[in-house]
């Protein structure tokens, strides 16, 4: 039985993990700028930042869990298996990058 072609839209998933990382960066930088500009209290600004970060970590974790639990798609052959492995690896890398990049700064003074 010949393999089914992997739908081209699956390629977008290669960029999905680090796109969420980019989204986290943009959202955190923007809210931080707005909070400092409008004189929000340090606690409330930190809470906002933590909530945004948590939301992005949740999305990444869900994506990782989703792709891991489903396993390599059946019937797509070596190309499907390759893309599944690559997408999983990018998701794990993006999750690690999100934690390393954005968690420690939240401990710093907010608007100095």
């Amino acid at each position, binding site marked *: 039985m010949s393999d089914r*072609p992997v739908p081209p839209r699956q390629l977008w998933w290669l960029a999905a993990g680090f796109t969420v990382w980019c989204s986290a960066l943009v959202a955190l*930088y923007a809210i931080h700028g707005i909070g400092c500009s*409008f004189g929000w209290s340090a606690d409330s600004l930190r809470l906002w930042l933590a909530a945004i970060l948590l939301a992005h970590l949740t999305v990444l974790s869900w994506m990782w869990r989703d792709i891991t639990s489903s396993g390599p798609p059946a019937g797509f052959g070596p190309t499907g298996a*390759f893309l599944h492995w*690559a997408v999983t690896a990018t998701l794990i890398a993006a999750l690690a990058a999100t934690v390393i*990049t954005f968690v420690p700064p939240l401990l710093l003074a907010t608007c100095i």
Partner: protein
Amino acid sequence: MSESAEQQSQAAPALRLHRELVAIWGTGPGLQRLAAVNHSIIGRRMMITSFVFFAIAGVLGMLTRVQLATPNGNFMDAETYNQVFTMHGSMMLFLFAIPMVESFAVYLTPKILGTRDFAFPRLTAYGYWCYLFGGTILTVALIAGVAPNSGWFMYTPLSSNIYTPGVNADVWLLGVTFVEISALSLAVEIVVSILKMRAPDMSLDRMPIFGWYILVTAMMMIVAFPPLILGSILLEVERAFGLPFFDPTRGGDALLWQHLFWLFGHPDVYIIFLPMAGVLSTIIPVFANRPLVGYRAIVVAIVALALLSFGIWVHHMFTVGIPHLALAFFSLGSAIVAVPTAVQIFAWLATLAHGRPRWDVPMLYIFGFFFIFVMGGLTGVMVAMVPFDWQAHDTYFVVAHMHYVVAGALAFPMLAGFYYWLPLLTGRAAVHRLAVPAFWLVFVGFNLTFFMMHLTGLLGMPRRIYTYQDDEGWNWLNLLSSVGGFVMTIGFALVVIDLVVQLRYGRRVRYNPWGSATLEWAMPIPPPPYAFASIPSLGPGSSQIASRDLALSLARGEGYLGFARNGWQETLGVHMTTGEPEQLIVLPQPTYLPLFTGIATAAAVLALLFKFYLLSLVAALATAGLFLLAAQRAGLARDYGPLPVGHGVSVPPHTEVAEAPAWLALICTLVADGTLFTSLLFGTFYLWIAAPNWSAVMAPAPSRMLVFVAVAALAVAAAAARGSMRAVAAGGKASGWMGLAVLALLAATAAAVGLIAGVLPHPREHALGATASALLSYVALHAGIGLLFLISNLLRLGAGFIAPRRVLDLRLTRLWLDYTLVTGVIAMGLVLTLPALVTVLARP
């Protein structure tokens, strides 16, 4: 005797096929060379042109070293020095580095992926002419003494009218933007070609690693260049018409320029590095005599590197007063970007360690790369740390870091690549007597020049100064740097002499001198205009794909499309992921249109430069007209149905399939366009948050009626585009729907222009009005371009290019109008919301 007869009997069909294909694919002699659209010709021209600019920029670099060799230098005055160092940086980055990596991509990608040309050869040629003309404008300005003089990053307010009143900054803004049109057009071309035009059965998991590198790089270019294009447009508009986007006295902010510039500038480092990493990943396995270690991990590292590079632009702005917490995001991001880079470095080292390496000239340059790039990477991690950066910022330490990274990432792999692929380009093997001393002169000279700059930087020598006192303690370090610069230049001169000698005296080679496995060696050397006489197919489990047998088999026409038909330039389109053949792509033949379109575009740019705005508008319209003319000559004017392509396979021509290259090209274009639009939104919000004088400004009240008319008209146009598609698909007439769409777009354009005319505060008085005008102009421009789409549709409908089975043109128009509607709604919504942002959410 019988063997000879057999060879002759095999050579005869190959020779006949060669002659037939050359007649179809060849470019004529003499002036007809200006009509060339073939990727091999354009790729070679780009290489030569970028080398010319490299030489000019190199001479400028030498002039700076002469000036700085001793204290109190009077070789140049301050103004000349400013022009020289600005042009050195601008030319190296915009006219050498980016075009050079593009030239590698243009020349090699189709060959390595096993296809005959790119998807849009006329666009390749147009991109080259834009590059040549844009670079020429900058060079002529240098000769005329009016070259840009505000640094290669053109920071405002130094580059604003008040501090740079002449045309110097305009030359940079217009010339570089012109060159970026070239880069963007080539990026779209490359993405589409890699995804749709590989050798049959070359699925993504079997694509040569070079293809992955170039694909990701081209995608990065599509997203990275628009912020700088927007910044250049806004700064030019500020300089020409007084709209104060970057003027803090009128609600603008000079730092907005830095954000827009570095949103491009940082990914640009990786745009330069990744193709060269692709060169390394291709060459190292050949000389290590084993396959590349960690193919899958490298693909993941490339993707990670590409996206991470977009999130660390602020590390160029650590000293501008951004709060520490935000700086920490970018500092940590800049540190972890070293991880995917290290994955590749270790994969290359592992390939060498587990193979049986042999030394040759390319390997010398690979050694140079490892040494220099790792040093540049390590100092990169140093300046990524905010406290260190605050000490080293704007000193020669940064100059040293930048040169180690760029030369390491670009120059050494580039020279490795040149020596590796020169037999392919020239048909001759290298002459090593000069190549080895040339390498050592370049390597030693480079380190002597730039290592010293780390020390002068740490001793406090600022960048961009044209001279210094003799009691600063920098004297002998600067002298050594200058001596090193000359040693390096002698090395590069030897490289050039070596290339000339190779061209004249090198031993002739016919097939694959390195024993490589990639497809560019499975063709006659140097390559004929059609590249492959027949297109190779990757059978299951094939690995050593560039064997001599394969080359001969392809030359005899035993692959796909091993014949000539209808005088068409034919190649295969494949499924994006699996590489299965799915369409026959018929490419356009040589034409002067790209040259004429490039000249018209250059005329528009030059007229802008000399402030002949009406003339510029006429030239811009001429450019649009030439694009329309090009569209009229594209495609096939009748249905053909599935056509045989060899090996018992039949596929329809690209005009009769849904996944034609043009569809993907428009998606890529809209991604670039959407990035520009997003950058404009970012600029608006940034000014609202960061710029002074926004809370005190009067609250504008745009006409809600005009906003409604504009949005409604865009919606009608999008709906009419759907109607025209349905009508044509059903065999009916679509001219009524198209007429409705034209009227709707005219109404939308008029409404947007009406809104611009009524913008308050006046666009020249405050950045609030300026940003509102920019948003509305974006809508009007896109509605206007939608009109061009419709005019093209009407003309092609009349000429028979659009039919029930050939509705690609109408699908493209629908997609454009959908995009225009969505961005129009967002832009109009923001224009309506701006007053609330200013008044309701006024900052304390």
